[in-house]
């Protein structure tokens, strides 16, 4: 049994999935809500027996360059848990060269992971150690994944790993086609499902994950590669900027009414 701190919003799919997987596996699990919620940062350093073995960052509210080290320091100055960093969030990349915030102790216990499959109810994870991750920490993380009964794939540390990168770029392409008036979102999704057998249309899929999250993955790719190829198309940024984030806000490429999973096509 391990002690696990989840840093994320309790209502978020990722946090919820980890919470139930951890519970089922018999781990002790505690959720820390958003960093803005100052109460959630322990005031007094925790007792040794209360310290976590793993800190899993589920939500990008925690991905700020300052809040995570602050949180870890607040826990304890001597104890260093293994940190799993979500690779689908702002600055969601473990070893970017301008990472000033992690000291070597933290980096040696840092592993990036992608929980994108959780949005489709698939218990699959991709993960990547940094170039400086301690092999022992990596082995422990693998054991954790095994105990959670998730299928885990080890990848080399790469911005966006595999699925987040491929999917965000598919969404970006579909969004550019919408923006250029090539076809309607409905027709684009239908075409990709029937013409090439995709499990979901990329735009409905993006609505499920969140347009903000898609933009964050693309931002990470732009920041790391400095390539035009990865820039999010204007439409995605405008949607993210105006709160059309998809299912969670009731509108994205489609409009969602009543039941959050019920998809209603926009009349436009």
């Amino acid at each position, binding site marked *: 049994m391990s002690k696990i701190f989840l840093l994320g919003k309790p209502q978020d799919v990722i946090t919820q999935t980890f919470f139930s997987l951890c519970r089922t596996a018999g781990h002790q699990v505690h959720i820390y809500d958003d960093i803005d919620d100052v109460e959630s940062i322990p005031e007094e350093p925790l007792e040794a027996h209360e310290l976590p073995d793993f800190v899993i960052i589920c939500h990008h509210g925690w991905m700020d360059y300052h809040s995570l080290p602050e949180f870890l320091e607040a826990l304890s100055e001597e104890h260093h848990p293994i940190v799993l960093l979500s690779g689908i969030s702002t600055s969601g990349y473990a070893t970017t060269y301008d990472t000033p915030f992690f000291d070597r102790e933290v980096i040696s216990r840092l592993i990036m992971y*992608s929980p*994108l*499959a959780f949005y*489709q109810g*698939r218990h*699959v*994870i*991709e993960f990547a150690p940094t170039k400086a991750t301690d092999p022992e920490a990596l082995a422990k993380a693998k054991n954790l994944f095994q105990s959670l009964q998730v*299928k885990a*794939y*080890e*990848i*080399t540390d*790469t911005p966006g*790993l*595999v*699925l987040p*990168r*491929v*999917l965000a*770029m*598919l969404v*970006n*392409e*579909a969004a550019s*086609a919408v923006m*250029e*008036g*090539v*076809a*309607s979102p409905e*027709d*684009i999704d*239908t*075409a*990709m499902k*029937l*013409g*090439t*057998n*995709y*499990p*979901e249309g*990329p735009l409905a899929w993006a609505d499920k994950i969140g347009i903000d999250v898609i933009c964050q993955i693309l931002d990470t790719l732009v920041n790391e590669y400095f*390539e*035009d*190829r990865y820039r999010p198309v204007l439409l995605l940024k405008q949607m993210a900027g105006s709160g059309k984030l998809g299912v969670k806000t009731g509108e994205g490429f489609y409009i969602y009414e009543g039941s959050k999973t019920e998809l209603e096509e926009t009349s436009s």
Partner: protein
Amino acid sequence: MSKKTDTPPVETIKRVGIVGAGTMGAGIGQISALKGFQVVLFDIKEDFLKRGRTQIETSLAKGKARGKLTDDDLQRVNENLITTLKLKETAQCDLVIEAVPENMALKKEIFQELDALAPDGTILSSNTSSLSVTEIAGATKNPDRIAGLHFFNPVPLMKLVEIIRGERTDPRIIETLKVFAQAVGKTPVIAKDTPGFIVNRVARPFYGEALRLLGEQATSHETIDEVLKEAGGFKMGPFELMDLIGLDVNFAVTQSVYEAYFHEPRYKPHIIQRRMVDAGLLGRKTNQGFYTYDSKKA
């Protein structure tokens, strides 16, 4: 260029002319005849027409063996489909679908002939998967009666049809083609004439990013395929798909979209594609692509 007449395009399709009895032409002829349309299938040689007929018979026999088609269905296709070596006969239809090889000069020539032969009101369409419908139509006197009608391979199985709206296509034609596509059992989507239309454009990153990940040695091609299937729910991974499509075909599509968009970086081909094509590792058809296939298996 001015319009020949003011005759409106036909609203109800009954007779369908098909130019080119190859993989796609024969397939489109088969499903149209099956759904009760009168089909006139044209090719330039008797042998090619025969080959088209054989393809249709084989496909129908399979459908029957699987219990999906009845003897009545087979008979209906037989009655409804005729073949011809005269383009004029194929042009005397409500809708003509061109399915000759993917070559702009050839397509322009055929559309000029069709435009001259077909009665006013006849709708002319191309099954092209990568050429500009606007450019093809621009070579004729009546570009307003021309649209794209992009079926997918194999035609009897694939549900999708992309209807392509050229710059000068009459909007009424799009509606008529939509009804026709539904009548032959397909789901139509409508796309503006842009490189790759919908599917061949939006699918580009699936291959492009996978190739980049492989090029950077993020992991093996097997793992990339497996992650996309297991984590993403894709039925096939990008490397399996490239092997199936043929690396040469996939590379050609990538290049054509990249060129057509004036070197937009998102569509940039990858050096791995070129090397594999140069090496003759084309996928399943050469028994070796990203994966190795057993030559004894069909």
